[in-house]
Structures are given as structure tokens and as C-alpha cells.
């Protein structure tokens, strides 16, 4: 787990985006962590099992392993607040924290469809039948990750946990309900995400205000 900022306070546990969006938002997330550290707020970023530094293969990972990993990380870091980003917002239900903040939540159905479409664009053999097989006969390579059928189905069917205490932040161009909007671009779409100091600063400010 990567941590930034002062160690004396409990800080914020960041639930990262899933699959390829994770890679594309690394810079944004580390910029947010630095900005919050500068505001004297600690942040912690766990690796989801099967991704990043984790030694387990993703094909052996079940949805509940990810939910459990987040619950464990919250307990380990003694985090007071959760900041879930994109698909990570589907994983924030297993824990209680003083504040739940979601940034640009994306439905699991959309996430998995983006990955399937992306592969179908470059792989002619990945036809309608192969696309259906993602959910019945895996694992399937999606965005560089071996995704098991169980995980693919779990992501597709995942719902956001209904909570009364959630603060939702979205980009102003984003669709869906939001409590706070920030100006910026969807960096998780970019082939070569360069980060955005302005977006990171706005997000850090919104988060710091919410938990302050």
C-alpha cells in the first residue's frame, strides 16, 4: 500500500479504478495524494489483489477478494474516509467510514463493455461469440488483464451500494447525479494520460473540504 502525508492522522483510503482505467489514472491519483499531503491530509492507496505489485494472478481473483482487500486496507490504515474513483465506487460497500466520497462512479456494466469493445476493435477474431464467452468461458484477456468469467460477471452485475452518507463528485461534462462538480477531462479515457494539475487540485480541495 502506498501512503502519503502525515502519519499521525487516520487519513483517506483511496479505492482505485479497475482494470485499464487504473493504469490511466495513476498520475491523477498520485497528484491528488500529493496535493492532499500538502494540505496535511494523509492518503493510502492499496493494490487490488491481482493488480500492481500484487503477487497473485488476476485470473484467480474473485470480486469478494477485492471487496475484502478494501475492507482490510481500511482497517489496516485506520482510515477515517474513503475516496473511491470510477469502478472503485463499486467496491466501497464493505466498509464503514466517516465519509464516503465517490469520484465519477461508473457502472460495472459499462466498464466491462468498454473493455470488450476495445478488444473487438483490434482483434477481428474477438467476434460476437467470443465476446459472449467472456461471461461463460474464461479467462479472457481484457485490456492486458486475464479476467475470469466469475470476475467478469461480478463486475457486470455490480451495483453501487446505497448509502446516505455518500458525496458524489463528477466532472462538469459527466452525466449522472453529483453533489459537487469539478472542471476537467476524463483522463481515464486517454491513451497517454499526462495528468492534470488543475483537476488534481480541484479534487483535493473538494475532498479536503468534505472531510474537514
Amino acid at each position, binding site marked *: 500500500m502506498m501512503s502519503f502525508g502525515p502519519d499521525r492522522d487516520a487519513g483517506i483510503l483511496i479505492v482505485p479504478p479497475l482494470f485499464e482505467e487504473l493504469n490511466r489514472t495513476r498520475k491523477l491519483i498520485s497528484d491528488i495524494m500529493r496535493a492532499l499531503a500538502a494540505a496535511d491530509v494523509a492518503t493510502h492507496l492499496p493494490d487490488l489483489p491481482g493488480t500492481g505489485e500484487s503477487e497473485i494472478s488476476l485470473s484467480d481473483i474473485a470480486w469478494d477478494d477485492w471487496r475484502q482487500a478494501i475492507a482490510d486496507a481500511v482497517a489496516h490504515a485506520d482510515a477515517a474516509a474513503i475516496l473511491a474513483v470510477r469502478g472503485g465506487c463499486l467496491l466501497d460497500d464493505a466498509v464503514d467510514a466517516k465519509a464516503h466520497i465517490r469520484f465519477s462512479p461508473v457502472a460495472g456494466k459499462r466498464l466491462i*463493455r468498454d*473493455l470488450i469493445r476495445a478488444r473487438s476493435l483490434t482483434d477481428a477474431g474477438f467476434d460476437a461469440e467470443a465476446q459472449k464467452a467472456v461471461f461463460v468461458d474464461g479467462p479472457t484477456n481484457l485490456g492486458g488483464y486475464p479476467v475470469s468469467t466469475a470476475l467478469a460477471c461480478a463486475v457486470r452485475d455490480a451495483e453501487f451500494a446505497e448509502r446516505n452518507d455518500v458525496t458524489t463528485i463528477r466532472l462538469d461534462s459527466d452525466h449522472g447525479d453529483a453533489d459537487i462538480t469539478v472542471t476537467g477531462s476524463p483522463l*481515464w479515457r486517454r491513451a497517454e494520460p499526462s495528468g492534470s494539475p488543475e483537476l488534481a487540485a480541484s479534487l483535493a480541495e473538494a475532498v479536503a473540504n468534505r472531510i474537514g
Partner: protein
Amino acid sequence: MATEAAGKVEETLRAALVDVLGLHEAQVADFDADTELFGAIPELDSMAVAGLLTEIEDRLDIWIEDDEFETEMLETFGNLLAFAKEKALQ
């Protein structure tokens, strides 16, 4: 009125290209029907295209069925625009 709605679709499409891909507004403003997209623009890799489609769905409030999805529609700006108009204005 139909022309106005079609113009709105085109405007939305260009804005999505700027926002999603981080292209310059001036570059996207120069796109015409023959401008090649997927395979010709480095920012448009397969994940970005998938994201672009999702973004277009959101902004135009349309839903592209899996069996409607053809790679041809991403070959040129004209193809993509024609598809978006057909979906949004039907």
C-alpha cells in the same frame, strides 16, 4: 428544425473528441467527413475509442447495441457523425 438538431449532434461529437482525447479544439474543428480517426490519430487507441463511444452515448442520450457496433463507423469522422445522427435523431 432537423438541421438544427443535426448541428447539435455534430457539435456534441466534436466536443467529445476534444474532451475525451485531449485534442486541440482547432484540430477537431478542421475535421471533415473524410478525416480518418481510428488508426490515424495516435490519441485514439482502442481503449480511447471505447471510451469515446461511451461518452457519445452519455452526451447524446443514446445506447449503441453490441450488434450495431461496427469498426467501420470509427474509420472517418464522416462515418461516426452519420452513425451518431442516425441514432440520435431517429
